[in-house]
Protein backbone atom coordinates (compact mmCIF):
# COMPACT_ATOMS: atom_id res chain seq x y z
CA UNK A 1 0.00 0.00 0.00
CA UNK A 2 1.81 3.04 -1.18
CA UNK A 3 -0.92 5.57 -0.86
CA UNK A 4 -0.69 7.15 2.54
CA UNK A 5 3.03 7.76 2.49
CA UNK A 6 3.50 9.46 -0.78
CA UNK A 7 0.35 9.31 -2.80
CA UNK A 8 1.50 11.58 -5.57
CA UNK A 9 4.07 9.09 -6.82
CA UNK A 10 1.38 6.56 -7.59
CA UNK A 11 -0.92 9.19 -8.93
CA UNK A 12 1.23 10.85 -11.50
CA UNK A 13 -0.78 9.58 -14.43
CA UNK A 14 -4.03 10.82 -13.02
CA UNK A 15 -3.04 14.41 -13.44
CA UNK A 16 -5.40 16.80 -11.76
CA UNK A 17 -5.71 15.00 -8.47
CA UNK A 18 -2.06 15.04 -7.58
CA UNK A 19 -1.98 18.67 -6.60
CA UNK A 20 -5.11 18.42 -4.54
CA UNK A 21 -4.13 15.25 -2.84
CA UNK A 22 -1.09 16.82 -1.33
CA UNK A 23 -3.36 19.32 0.29
CA UNK A 24 -5.40 16.70 2.09
CA UNK A 25 -3.86 15.89 5.36
CA UNK A 26 -6.55 13.37 6.25
CA UNK A 27 -10.12 12.24 5.75
CA UNK A 28 -11.54 15.21 7.65
CA UNK A 29 -9.67 17.52 5.34
CA UNK A 30 -11.04 15.76 2.28
CA UNK A 31 -14.54 15.80 3.73
CA UNK A 32 -14.29 19.49 4.46
CA UNK A 33 -13.10 20.07 0.92
CA UNK A 34 -16.14 18.26 -0.50
CA UNK A 35 -18.48 20.21 1.75
CA UNK A 36 -16.97 23.51 0.68
CA UNK A 37 -17.12 22.55 -2.95
CA UNK A 38 -20.79 21.72 -2.61
CA UNK A 39 -21.47 24.82 -0.55
CA UNK A 40 -23.69 22.84 1.77
CA UNK A 41 -24.49 23.70 5.36
CA UNK A 42 -22.03 21.92 7.58
CA UNK A 43 -24.53 21.69 10.43
CA UNK A 44 -27.14 20.11 8.16
CA UNK A 45 -25.04 17.74 6.12
CA UNK A 46 -26.69 15.96 3.23
CA UNK A 47 -25.03 12.76 4.36
CA UNK A 48 -26.12 10.51 1.51
CA UNK A 49 -24.67 12.81 -1.09
CA UNK A 50 -21.50 13.58 0.83
CA UNK A 51 -20.93 9.89 1.54
CA UNK A 52 -21.21 9.05 -2.16
CA UNK A 53 -18.83 11.84 -3.07
CA UNK A 54 -16.40 10.77 -0.40
CA UNK A 55 -16.38 7.19 -1.65
CA UNK A 56 -15.92 8.36 -5.21
CA UNK A 57 -13.13 10.70 -4.17
CA UNK A 58 -11.10 8.12 -2.28
CA UNK A 59 -11.50 5.69 -5.16
CA UNK A 60 -10.32 8.36 -7.59
CA UNK A 61 -7.45 9.36 -5.36
CA UNK A 62 -6.37 5.78 -4.82
CA UNK A 63 -6.98 6.19 -1.11
CA UNK A 64 -9.41 3.31 -0.81
CA UNK A 65 -6.77 1.31 0.96
CA UNK A 66 -5.78 3.92 3.48
CA UNK A 67 -7.18 2.93 6.85
CA UNK A 68 -8.03 6.42 8.02
CA UNK A 69 -10.02 7.17 4.90
CA UNK A 70 -11.77 3.81 4.97
CA UNK A 71 -12.75 4.35 8.55
CA UNK A 72 -14.33 7.65 7.63
CA UNK A 73 -16.11 6.05 4.68
CA UNK A 74 -17.54 3.41 7.00
CA UNK A 75 -18.62 6.08 9.45
CA UNK A 76 -20.41 8.02 6.74
CA UNK A 77 -22.23 4.93 5.54
CA UNK A 78 -23.26 4.07 9.06
CA UNK A 79 -24.69 7.54 9.60
CA UNK A 80 -26.46 7.31 6.28
CA UNK A 81 -28.05 4.04 7.35
CA UNK A 82 -29.05 5.42 10.74
CA UNK A 83 -30.77 8.35 9.09
CA UNK A 84 -32.82 5.97 7.00
CA UNK A 85 -34.24 4.22 10.05
CA UNK A 86 -37.82 5.26 10.72
CA UNK A 87 -38.09 7.69 13.58
CA UNK A 88 -40.94 7.43 16.00
CA UNK A 89 -43.07 10.53 16.15
CA UNK A 90 -42.59 12.60 19.23
CA UNK A 91 -39.37 10.88 20.07
CA UNK A 92 -37.58 13.56 22.03
CA UNK A 93 -34.68 11.31 22.78
CA UNK A 94 -33.68 11.07 19.14
CA UNK A 95 -30.19 12.26 18.58
CA UNK A 96 -29.09 13.27 15.17
CA UNK A 97 -26.55 10.62 14.13
CA UNK A 98 -24.65 13.34 12.31
CA UNK A 99 -23.99 15.45 15.37
CA UNK A 100 -20.70 13.83 16.39
CA UNK A 101 -19.33 14.11 12.88
CA UNK A 102 -20.47 17.72 12.62
CA UNK A 103 -18.77 18.51 15.91
CA UNK A 104 -15.53 16.99 14.67
CA UNK A 105 -15.75 18.79 11.36
CA UNK A 106 -16.27 22.13 13.05
CA UNK A 107 -13.39 21.43 15.36
CA UNK A 108 -11.20 20.45 12.47
CA UNK A 109 -12.26 23.49 10.50
CA UNK A 110 -11.05 25.64 13.36
CA UNK A 111 -7.73 23.83 13.35
CA UNK A 112 -7.40 24.54 9.64
CA UNK A 113 -7.97 28.17 10.30
CA UNK A 114 -5.25 28.11 12.93
CA UNK A 115 -3.00 26.37 10.42
CA UNK A 116 -3.45 29.28 8.05
CA UNK A 117 -2.57 31.68 10.83
CA UNK A 118 0.50 29.69 11.88
CA UNK A 119 1.61 29.34 8.29
CA UNK A 120 1.38 33.07 7.77
CA UNK A 121 3.27 33.79 10.98
CA UNK A 122 5.99 31.28 10.11
CA UNK A 123 6.40 32.77 6.67
CA UNK A 124 6.81 36.24 8.06
CA UNK A 125 9.33 35.01 10.55
CA UNK A 126 11.20 33.14 7.81
CA UNK A 127 11.79 36.48 6.10
CA UNK A 128 13.97 37.58 8.98
CA UNK A 129 17.38 36.06 9.41
CA UNK A 130 19.24 35.79 12.64
CA UNK A 131 22.97 36.12 12.89
CA UNK A 132 24.50 33.59 10.57
CA UNK A 133 28.01 33.84 11.89
CA UNK A 134 28.63 32.37 15.26
CA UNK A 135 31.59 33.88 16.97
CA UNK A 136 33.78 31.12 18.23
CA UNK A 137 33.15 30.75 21.91
CA UNK A 138 36.18 31.64 23.96
CA UNK A 139 37.79 28.65 25.51
CA UNK A 140 36.76 29.21 29.06
CA UNK A 141 36.38 26.76 31.86
CA UNK A 142 32.72 25.93 32.25
CA UNK A 143 31.03 27.90 34.98
CA UNK A 144 30.62 26.10 38.25
CA UNK A 145 27.61 23.85 38.14
CA UNK A 146 24.80 24.37 40.51
CA UNK A 147 22.76 21.35 41.38
CA UNK A 148 20.33 21.45 44.19
CA UNK A 149 19.60 18.16 45.87
CA UNK A 150 15.95 19.10 45.95
CA UNK A 151 15.93 19.65 42.21
CA UNK A 152 17.50 16.26 41.71
CA UNK A 153 15.00 14.61 43.99
CA UNK A 154 12.15 16.36 42.26
CA UNK A 155 13.50 15.02 39.00
CA UNK A 156 13.68 11.56 40.54
CA UNK A 157 10.05 11.94 41.56
CA UNK A 158 9.07 12.85 38.05
CA UNK A 159 11.00 9.89 36.78
CA UNK A 160 9.42 7.51 39.26
CA UNK A 161 6.05 8.72 38.09
CA UNK A 162 7.10 7.76 34.60
CA UNK A 163 7.93 4.19 35.47
CA UNK A 164 4.79 2.19 34.90
CA UNK A 165 5.88 -0.87 36.86
CA UNK A 166 8.41 -1.35 39.61
CA UNK A 167 10.42 -3.47 37.24
CA UNK A 168 11.15 -2.37 33.75
CA UNK A 169 10.18 -4.71 31.05
CA UNK A 170 10.02 -4.35 27.41
CA UNK A 171 6.94 -5.31 25.50
CA UNK A 172 7.97 -7.03 22.33
CA UNK A 173 5.36 -7.92 19.78
CA UNK A 174 5.29 -11.71 19.73
CA UNK A 175 4.99 -13.19 16.32
CA UNK A 176 5.04 -16.62 17.94
CA UNK A 177 2.32 -18.92 16.76
CA UNK A 178 2.02 -21.43 19.56
CA UNK A 179 -1.55 -22.24 18.68
CA UNK A 180 -0.65 -23.15 15.14
CA UNK A 181 2.24 -25.30 16.31
CA UNK A 182 0.02 -27.04 18.85
CA UNK A 183 -2.49 -27.87 16.16
CA UNK A 184 0.25 -29.19 13.92
CA UNK A 185 1.75 -31.40 16.61
CA UNK A 186 -1.67 -32.65 17.67
CA UNK A 187 -2.37 -33.64 14.10
CA UNK A 188 0.94 -35.47 13.91
CA UNK A 189 0.17 -37.27 17.17
CA UNK A 190 -3.14 -38.62 15.86
CA UNK A 191 -1.36 -39.81 12.76
CA UNK A 192 1.77 -41.32 14.16
CA UNK A 193 2.84 -42.92 17.37
CA UNK A 194 6.29 -41.47 17.26
CA UNK A 195 8.09 -38.83 15.24
CA UNK A 196 11.13 -36.60 15.33
CA UNK A 197 11.66 -32.91 16.05
CA UNK A 198 12.33 -32.27 12.37
CA UNK A 199 8.87 -33.58 11.53
CA UNK A 200 7.43 -30.87 13.75
CA UNK A 201 9.33 -27.82 12.56
CA UNK A 202 10.32 -28.84 9.05
CA UNK A 203 13.70 -28.25 7.49
CA UNK A 204 14.13 -24.52 7.04
CA UNK A 205 12.43 -23.34 10.20
CA UNK A 206 13.27 -19.89 11.51
CA UNK A 207 13.77 -18.90 15.13
CA UNK A 208 10.13 -17.97 15.55
CA UNK A 209 8.83 -21.29 14.26
CA UNK A 210 11.29 -23.22 16.37
CA UNK A 211 10.30 -21.28 19.47
CA UNK A 212 6.60 -21.66 18.72
CA UNK A 213 6.94 -25.39 18.21
CA UNK A 214 9.09 -25.81 21.28
CA UNK A 215 6.67 -23.97 23.54
CA UNK A 216 3.76 -25.94 22.08
CA UNK A 217 5.63 -29.18 22.64
CA UNK A 218 6.42 -28.36 26.26
CA UNK A 219 2.82 -27.45 26.85
CA UNK A 220 1.55 -30.68 25.31
CA UNK A 221 4.06 -32.69 27.31
CA UNK A 222 2.93 -30.95 30.45
CA UNK A 223 -0.66 -31.83 29.66
CA UNK A 224 0.47 -35.41 29.20
CA UNK A 225 -0.55 -35.56 25.57
CA UNK A 226 2.89 -36.65 24.50
CA UNK A 227 6.29 -37.52 25.80
CA UNK A 228 9.44 -35.79 24.68
CA UNK A 229 12.70 -37.69 24.84
CA UNK A 230 16.23 -37.11 23.87
CA UNK A 231 18.00 -40.50 23.39
CA UNK A 232 21.42 -39.00 24.00
CA UNK A 233 22.96 -35.56 24.48
CA UNK A 234 22.56 -33.32 21.42
CA UNK A 235 20.52 -35.94 19.63
CA UNK A 236 17.29 -34.81 17.95
CA UNK A 237 14.25 -34.96 20.21
CA UNK A 238 11.79 -37.75 19.76
CA UNK A 239 8.11 -37.09 20.38
CA UNK A 240 5.94 -40.05 21.37
CA UNK A 241 2.19 -40.21 21.80
CA UNK A 242 1.20 -40.91 25.38
CA UNK A 243 -0.96 -43.96 25.18
CA UNK A 244 -2.65 -43.20 28.50
CA UNK A 245 -4.46 -40.21 27.06
CA UNK A 246 -4.81 -40.36 23.34
CA UNK A 247 -4.38 -37.14 21.53
CA UNK A 248 -7.57 -35.17 21.25
Amino acid at each position, binding site marked *: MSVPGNPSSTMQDQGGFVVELEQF*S*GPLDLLLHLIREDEVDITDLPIARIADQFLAAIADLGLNQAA*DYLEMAARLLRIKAQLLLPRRLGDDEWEDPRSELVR*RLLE*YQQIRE*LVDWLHHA*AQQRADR*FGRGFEQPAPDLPPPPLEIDLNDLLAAAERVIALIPEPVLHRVVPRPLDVEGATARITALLTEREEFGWVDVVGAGAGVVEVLSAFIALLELAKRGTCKVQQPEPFAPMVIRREPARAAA
Partner: protein
Amino acid sequence: MSPLAQLLEAALFAASRPLTLEELATLDPEAGETGTRAALAELRAAWAAADHGVELAEIGEGWQFLTRPDYAEAIERAQFALRPRRLSPAALETLAIIAYRQPVGRVEVDEIRGVDSEAVIDKLLERGLVEVASRGEGLGRPLLYGTTPQFLEILGLKGLEELPRLDELSVALRPPAPAEEPE
Protein backbone atom coordinates in the same frame (compact mmCIF):
# COMPACT_ATOMS: atom_id res chain seq x y z
CA MET B 1 24.12 54.67 24.14
CA SER B 2 24.76 53.71 27.71
CA PRO B 3 27.57 51.24 28.38
CA LEU B 4 25.05 48.60 29.34
CA ALA B 5 23.14 49.07 26.09
CA GLN B 6 26.42 48.65 24.18
CA LEU B 7 27.25 45.57 26.14
CA LEU B 8 23.80 44.15 25.43
CA GLU B 9 24.25 44.99 21.77
CA ALA B 10 27.53 43.12 21.62
CA ALA B 11 26.11 40.11 23.45
CA LEU B 12 22.93 39.98 21.35
CA PHE B 13 24.93 40.46 18.19
CA ALA B 14 27.25 37.64 19.04
CA ALA B 15 24.45 35.24 19.85
CA SER B 16 22.64 33.35 17.14
CA ARG B 17 19.63 32.61 19.30
CA PRO B 18 17.26 34.74 21.34
CA LEU B 19 18.57 35.60 24.79
CA THR B 20 16.08 35.90 27.61
CA LEU B 21 15.83 38.88 29.89
CA GLU B 22 16.99 36.63 32.70
CA GLU B 23 20.11 35.68 30.79
CA LEU B 24 20.84 39.24 29.73
CA ALA B 25 20.47 40.47 33.28
CA THR B 26 23.42 38.34 34.32
CA LEU B 27 25.66 40.60 32.23
CA ASP B 28 25.36 43.38 34.74
CA PRO B 29 24.14 42.06 38.05
CA GLU B 30 23.93 45.59 39.45
CA ALA B 31 21.48 46.69 36.82
CA GLY B 32 19.25 43.71 37.49
CA GLU B 33 16.25 42.89 35.35
CA THR B 34 14.80 46.38 35.65
CA GLY B 35 17.96 48.11 34.50
CA THR B 36 18.47 45.56 31.76
CA ARG B 37 14.94 46.05 30.52
CA ALA B 38 15.52 49.80 30.35
CA ALA B 39 18.79 49.34 28.46
CA LEU B 40 17.05 46.99 26.02
CA ALA B 41 14.43 49.64 25.35
CA GLU B 42 17.20 52.17 24.78
CA LEU B 43 18.98 49.82 22.41
CA ARG B 44 15.85 49.05 20.45
CA ALA B 45 15.03 52.73 20.13
CA ALA B 46 18.56 53.58 18.95
CA TRP B 47 18.35 50.93 16.27
CA ALA B 48 14.87 51.89 15.18
CA ALA B 49 15.88 55.55 14.88
CA ALA B 50 18.71 54.92 12.44
CA ASP B 51 17.79 53.26 9.16
CA HIS B 52 19.10 49.78 9.67
CA GLY B 53 18.79 46.56 7.75
CA VAL B 54 18.79 44.74 11.05
CA GLU B 55 16.46 45.31 13.98
CA LEU B 56 16.11 44.19 17.54
CA ALA B 57 13.12 41.91 17.99
CA GLU B 58 11.46 40.45 21.04
CA ILE B 59 10.78 36.91 20.09
CA GLY B 60 10.45 33.40 21.49
CA GLU B 61 10.68 34.51 25.11
CA GLY B 62 13.85 36.44 24.41
CA TRP B 63 15.58 39.14 22.42
CA GLN B 64 17.35 38.73 19.13
CA PHE B 65 18.73 40.84 16.30
CA LEU B 66 17.03 39.91 13.02
CA THR B 67 17.28 41.23 9.50
CA ARG B 68 14.35 43.26 8.23
CA PRO B 69 11.94 41.24 6.09
CA ASP B 70 12.35 43.51 3.05
CA TYR B 71 15.82 42.11 2.42
CA ALA B 72 15.04 38.40 2.71
CA GLU B 73 14.62 37.82 -0.98
CA ALA B 74 17.83 39.53 -2.06
CA ILE B 75 19.81 37.72 0.62
CA GLU B 76 18.38 34.37 -0.36
CA ARG B 77 18.90 35.03 -4.04
CA ALA B 78 22.56 35.77 -3.38
CA GLN B 79 22.65 32.49 -1.39
CA PHE B 80 24.10 34.11 1.70
CA ALA B 81 21.41 32.55 3.83
CA LEU B 82 18.47 30.23 3.29
CA ARG B 83 14.96 30.63 4.52
CA PRO B 84 13.94 27.65 6.61
CA ARG B 85 11.92 24.94 4.99
CA ARG B 86 8.19 25.31 5.30
CA LEU B 87 6.29 23.11 7.65
CA SER B 88 3.86 20.72 6.02
CA PRO B 89 0.12 21.17 6.60
CA ALA B 90 0.17 18.01 8.70
CA ALA B 91 2.93 19.43 10.89
CA LEU B 92 1.11 22.73 11.28
CA GLU B 93 -2.15 21.00 12.16
CA THR B 94 -0.40 18.98 14.79
CA LEU B 95 1.38 22.05 16.13
CA ALA B 96 -1.88 23.97 16.28
CA ILE B 97 -3.54 21.24 18.29
CA ILE B 98 -0.60 20.87 20.65
CA ALA B 99 -0.28 24.63 21.08
CA TYR B 100 -3.89 25.07 22.07
CA ARG B 101 -4.45 21.93 24.06
CA GLN B 102 -1.12 21.45 25.77
CA PRO B 103 -0.34 19.31 27.56
CA VAL B 104 -2.01 16.90 25.19
CA GLY B 105 -1.52 13.26 24.30
CA ARG B 106 -1.16 11.68 20.93
CA VAL B 107 -4.55 9.99 21.03
CA GLU B 108 -6.28 13.33 21.28
CA VAL B 109 -4.22 14.76 18.43
CA ASP B 110 -5.07 11.71 16.32
CA GLU B 111 -8.72 12.12 17.10
CA ILE B 112 -8.92 15.75 16.16
CA ARG B 113 -6.92 15.28 12.98
CA GLY B 114 -8.62 12.02 12.05
CA VAL B 115 -5.29 10.43 11.18
CA ASP B 116 -2.39 8.82 12.94
CA SER B 117 0.04 11.53 14.02
CA GLU B 118 2.90 9.54 15.47
CA ALA B 119 5.35 10.22 12.65
CA VAL B 120 4.49 13.91 12.58
CA ILE B 121 4.93 14.28 16.32
CA ASP B 122 8.26 12.47 16.13
CA LYS B 123 9.44 14.93 13.53
CA LEU B 124 8.30 17.88 15.60
CA LEU B 125 10.12 16.48 18.62
CA GLU B 126 13.24 16.07 16.53
CA ARG B 127 13.02 19.66 15.33
CA GLY B 128 12.59 20.82 18.90
CA LEU B 129 9.22 22.42 18.25
CA VAL B 130 7.40 20.29 20.78
CA GLU B 131 8.57 18.44 23.84
CA VAL B 132 7.28 15.94 26.32
CA ALA B 133 5.65 18.13 28.90
CA SER B 134 4.38 15.50 31.30
CA ARG B 135 2.66 12.17 31.54
CA GLY B 136 -1.05 11.69 31.60
CA GLU B 137 -3.10 9.61 33.95
CA GLY B 138 -4.48 6.30 32.91
CA LEU B 139 -3.32 3.29 31.01
CA GLY B 140 0.37 3.35 30.20
CA ARG B 141 0.65 6.92 31.46
CA PRO B 142 0.70 8.41 27.97
CA LEU B 143 3.21 11.10 27.09
CA LEU B 144 1.73 14.57 26.95
CA TYR B 145 3.22 17.12 24.62
CA GLY B 146 3.67 20.87 24.78
CA THR B 147 5.29 23.51 22.61
CA THR B 148 8.84 24.83 23.12
CA PRO B 149 10.36 28.34 22.97
CA GLN B 150 11.69 27.22 19.59
CA PHE B 151 8.09 26.93 18.40
CA LEU B 152 7.49 30.55 19.36
CA GLU B 153 10.72 31.51 17.70
CA ILE B 154 9.92 30.06 14.30
CA LEU B 155 6.59 31.85 14.40
CA GLY B 156 8.14 35.10 15.58
CA LEU B 157 5.94 35.19 18.68
CA LYS B 158 6.82 36.54 22.10
CA GLY B 159 4.62 34.07 23.85
CA LEU B 160 1.69 31.72 23.48
CA GLU B 161 -0.65 34.56 24.36
CA GLU B 162 0.06 36.05 20.95
CA LEU B 163 -1.67 33.15 19.25
CA PRO B 164 -5.17 34.07 18.12
CA ARG B 165 -7.80 33.44 20.74
CA LEU B 166 -10.15 30.71 19.68
CA ASP B 167 -13.16 32.99 19.90
CA GLU B 168 -11.49 35.38 17.49
CA LEU B 169 -11.53 32.81 14.74
CA SER B 170 -14.25 33.08 12.15
CA VAL B 171 -15.42 29.56 12.79
CA ALA B 172 -17.28 29.23 16.02
CA LEU B 173 -16.02 25.92 17.17
CA ARG B 174 -16.53 25.43 20.81
CA PRO B 175 -19.94 23.98 21.42
CA PRO B 176 -22.02 26.14 23.76
CA ALA B 177 -21.32 23.87 26.70
CA PRO B 178 -18.20 25.60 28.05
CA ALA B 179 -16.29 22.97 29.96
CA GLU B 180 -16.22 20.27 27.38
CA GLU B 181 -13.97 17.48 28.50
CA PRO B 182 -11.63 16.18 25.85
CA GLU B 183 -12.36 12.51 25.71
